[in-house]
């Protein structure tokens, strides 16, 4: 048994144990914290599988963003006095509910295992095809080439789904705050540690985001990861009271939100006139992909920040 194998086995056991305790946790907040730990461990597992792109996305979005959205939801429930309502109903109904959940989970797991067993053993999949055409994509990171060129419509639809989610959150706004400022007013001490941290980290975070975006062309990274880092440092600055969210009726904010998807669609439509929707002419494919990635990262950062801030709760 090599040390690497021992590490992998330990990781598998840990992921299973943390997942189980997240499901079984009685306290809502404890369950969410365990879910975040689960996401971070899953990111380590992706690193062990040499899938750095997926690991970055899992750590940033799976653990970080989803975690903070869940914490926000739990806080809202608790404020309304509904958070403790996780105690399930008693008696027969409870037993049937439990049995149903168990059957559903066991069935799902069995189906996944059966599916995994039917996969071809060599597991190359479409990889040779992607690598053959890498030169034509204008980008040397195969993951970015797949995401923005070979299967660009997947990424386009993902971003549109995020935009729809933001609109969905906004539609829950109470009438009197419609068009107002999302999130609560922050009361950080102007000379406190958070204010200092909020000034220091955005500079580092901005550099990291630009690096992730630029490196995405030939190494792991890309618009989603860069957008998440940008959103995180902006939220930190907002939490430190250094800046405030704009009103959702702000034209500039709305422009920022649609900038990435709109440009993506525009370039894709020009490709449609030339023959293929979302197909870039080879001479400008590198430039097109880079421009789309930069604008997408900005829009994604705005969308994720607004998702975390939630519904408008004050007037501008």
């Amino acid at each position: 048994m090599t040390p690497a194998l021992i590490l992998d086995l330990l990781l598998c056991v840990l992921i299973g144990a943390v997942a189980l305790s997240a499901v079984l946790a009685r306290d809502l907040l404890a369950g969410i914290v365990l879910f975040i730990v689960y996401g971070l461990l899953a990111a380590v597992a992706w690193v062990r599988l040499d899938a750095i792109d997926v690991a970055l996305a899992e750590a940033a979005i799976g653990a970080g963003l989803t975690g903070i959205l869940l914490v926000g939801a739990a806080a809202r429930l608790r404020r309304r006095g509904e958070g403790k309502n996780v105690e399930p109903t008693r008696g027969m109904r409870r037993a049937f509910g439990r049995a149903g959940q168990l059957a559903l989970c066991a069935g799902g797991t069995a189906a996944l295992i059966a599916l995994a067993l039917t996969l071809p053993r060599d597991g190359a999949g479409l990889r040779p095809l992607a690598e053959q055409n890498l030169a034509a994509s204008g980008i040397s990171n195969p993951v970015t080439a797949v995401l923005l060129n070979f299967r660009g419509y997947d990424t386009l639809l993902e971003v549109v789904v995020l935009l729809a989610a933001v609109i969905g959150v906004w539609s829950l706004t109470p009438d009197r705050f419609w068009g107002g400022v999302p999130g609560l007013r922050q009361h950080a001490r102007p000379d406190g540690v958070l204010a200092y941290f909020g000034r220091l980290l955005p500079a580092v975070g901005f550099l990291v985001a630009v690096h992730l975006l630029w490196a995405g062309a030939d190494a792991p990274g890309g618009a989603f990861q860069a957008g998440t880092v940008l959103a995180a440092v902006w939220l930190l600055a907002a939490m430190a009271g250094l800046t405030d969210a704009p009103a959702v009726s702000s034209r500039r904010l709305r422009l920022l939100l649609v900038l990435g998807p709109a440009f993506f669609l525009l370039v894709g439509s020009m490709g449609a006139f030339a023959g293929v929707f979302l197909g870039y002419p080879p001479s400008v494919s590198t430039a097109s992909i880079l421009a789309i990635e930069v604008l997408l990262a900005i829009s994604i950062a705005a969308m994720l920040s607004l998702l975390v801030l939630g519904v408008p709760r004050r007037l501008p």
Partner: protein
Amino acid sequence: MVSIMDIATLAFASAGVAFFVAGTLGLLRFPDVHSRLHALTKADNLGLGLIVIGLMLQAGSLWLALKLGLVWLLAILAAATVSQLIARAALTGRPHTLSRSDP
């Protein structure tokens, strides 16, 4: 063949792990928020630092070693800020809506 570098790495990393174990033990066993934080910051700052020093010796290039050092620096900054905030929230006795675990 074990070089002096490898021995140094082992020594630093083991010392780091010892700090992490002690910090975790403190987190689990200490009675209140402040003493738990006190235990945890030792693990975060010194434990991680010792492990990073151990890894720097294996980095092979100065650039990679500097990046590892940067990771440590960022972790220290974040840990210092967050522990200040937690400590202050526990001190004012007006816990954030979320940190209230009693019914």
